[in-house]
């Protein structure tokens, strides 16, 4: 008797219930199993034979998974469910990282943060929100942070555009032979007005690589908030923004940031990123990005923005090499450093020195005002 049938026997459950229970366990582990996928799974198992454990396994991989990450989780849960039914994997088999909402809790020290370098006499005259716009986000207390979060809504990204291979109707330009002929066809073959066309435009993809290592931890929350805003406003204009976090490893967080609600999106992103406040191996994670995504198309012709302070623990030469690769593939590479806007900053860290020759823009990124400048740079790219 097969494992699956045995499991069903001892639990006195119908096989379908065992299988559906498995899909629920899979959903709890983070694989997006929908109702129709679960039904497809049952149909597939019925087609290859319920008694065959191996075939059940393959049928499940084909019907319930949609990406290599899903496959890895599927293997874990499958082993747990059909081998020893008591040792089920708990929901979210990962360590829960630092919750991204930590700043919403009242902090022990009330924000007696000293004024940033970029504040001066105008603070008296200007409205508080204008001051907040220019404050370094790392120096804000929790109440100020909350106010600033609400101000992110004003950031809007017009996606950068590129020319397309396809033509659009236009009132001047090149002769559009097929439309001209079609028009004359309407008039039963009488030649008439000539139709013109020109190349159309499409939004370019924007790729954000956000460093979430220890030295950047004060900015991680604001940067993810920025990424969320860019993702949302680009989508409203038909553009695409893809976001990855880099640190000791590369994590694709685009899906989490698609949620329209900012706080919810950032918590969701926080749950998928395993390496908050770890070390920085920027060169290596950049290479993984290029190998797995960038070179194949994600970075091709797109605007790539790297948010990092360039404190590279790894090999700076590797970082330089990978940045060179990135520049060869991308349309434009922008490096955003939160320390750049501060007095006395000079780009001396090994990582920055190695990377700078391969960047098209080098910008500050420590306050809402600098973020607004960044969106402008991206739009014009």
């Amino acid at each position, binding site marked *: 008797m097969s494992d699956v049938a045995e499991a069903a026997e001892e639990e006195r459950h119908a096989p379908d219930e065992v299988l559906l229970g498995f899909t629920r366990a899979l959903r709890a582990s983070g694989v997006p199993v929908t109702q129709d996928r679960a039904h*497809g799974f049952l149909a597939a198992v019925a087609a290859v034979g319920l008694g065959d454990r191996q075939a059940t396994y393959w049928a499940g991989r084909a019907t319930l998974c949609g990406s290599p990450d899903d496959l890895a989780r599927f293997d874990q849960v499958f082993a747990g469910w059909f081998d020893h039914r008591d040792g089920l994997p708990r929901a979210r088999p990962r360590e829960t990282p630092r919750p991204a909402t930590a700043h919403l809790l009242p902090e022990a020290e009330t924000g007696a943060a000293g004024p940033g370098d970029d504040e001066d006499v105008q603070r008296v005259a200007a409205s508080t929100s204008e001051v907040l716009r220019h404050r370094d986000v790392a120096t804000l207390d929790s109440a100020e942070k909350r106010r600033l979060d609400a101000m992110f809504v004003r950031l809007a990204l017009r996606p950068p555009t590129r020319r397309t*291979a396809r033509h659009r109707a236009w009132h001047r330009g090149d002769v559009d032979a097929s439309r001209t002929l079609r028009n004359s066809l309407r008039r*039963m073959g009488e030649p008439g007005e000539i139709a013109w066309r020109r190349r159309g435009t499409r939004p370019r993809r924007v790729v954000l690589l956000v460093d979430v290592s220890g030295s950047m931890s004060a900015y991680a929350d604001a940067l993810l908030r920025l990424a969320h805003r860019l993702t949302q406003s680009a989508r409203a204009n038909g553009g695409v923004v893809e976001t990855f976090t880099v640190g000791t490893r590369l994590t694709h967080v685009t899906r989490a940031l698609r949620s329209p609600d900012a706080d919810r999106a950032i918590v969701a992103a926080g749950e998928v990123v395993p390496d908050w406040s770890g070390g920085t191996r920027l060169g290596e994670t950049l290479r993984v990005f290029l190998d797995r995504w960038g070179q194949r198309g994600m970075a091709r012709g797109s605007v790539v923005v790297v948010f990092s302070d360039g404190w590279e623990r790894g090999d700076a030469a590797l970082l330089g090499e990978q940045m060179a690769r990135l520049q060869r593939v991308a349309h434009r590479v922008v490096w955003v450093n939160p320390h750049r806007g501060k007095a006395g900053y000079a780009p001396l860290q090994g990582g920055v020195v190695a990377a700078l020759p391969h960047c098209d823009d080098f910008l500050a990124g420590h306050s809402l005002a600098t973020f607004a400048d960044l969106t402008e740079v991206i739009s014009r790219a």
Partner: protein
Amino acid sequence: MDSVADVAARLRATGYLADDELATVVFLASRMQRPLLLEGEPGTGKTALAEALAQTLDLPLVRLQCYEGIDASQALYDWDFPRQILHLRALEAAGSVDSDEAEKSLYDERFLLARPVLAALRQAPAVLLVDEVDRADDEFEAFLLEVLSTWQVTIPEFGTVTAPEPPLVVLTSNRTRELHDALKRRCLYHWIDHPGLDREVEIVRSRAPEVGEQLARQVVSLVQQLRVRDDLLKPPGVAETLDWARALTHLGTTDLDLESAAATLGALLKYREDADRVKAALDRMLSR
């Protein structure tokens, strides 16, 4: 195709070696009439599978190559305007033109240029290969989803074309971006990995019979070593292995040595940096 083993045997007969998991997925795709979504590194045999399927089922293979900006008119149909104009002129020359009649005859099947998706629906049963679907954009994915759900397309001047039976659809993706979940849910998913040493030798022997056993082993073991290195920009796929083995055979090589390997490396590695790195290590790798 009536069982998983049967699928594997039939694919093998065409020279395509599928492992059990892939055979299972193909069997399910034909049994459940669901499209098959293949993801994996370039050169792992995603496109070749569609070709092998068409060959073994003796069905026409209709290929739709996706690219950025592809839209429904390049995937579905278009009208042949110049020929329609000529047709009209011919009608006029022949005498009086009844405009209703003329209009009807204009939008005749003769002047319909069937693009791949329509061609596959009309020729069904057929194998429809949608290659590199990740390079198309969201709108096109939505369009594709519609066709793959209903197996019919509507042409305003002409009517609705419905496939007598759904074509077997194979979509391939190199994962340059995540496909929309709605499309993935329609499909059966399979990730194709690089084969192990013995299987790859088998593939070389079956796809390129002119390559000798000894050379095939040497070539494949070197390629396998290259894939575990992590400093290559583009690790070679099975397609590159085959190219390289064939190139060496053309030069009359039966035993891989440093000289012949270095001379033909261009068939295997497509980046200068990769070639330099491998050349430096070739000596050590061959002596293993």
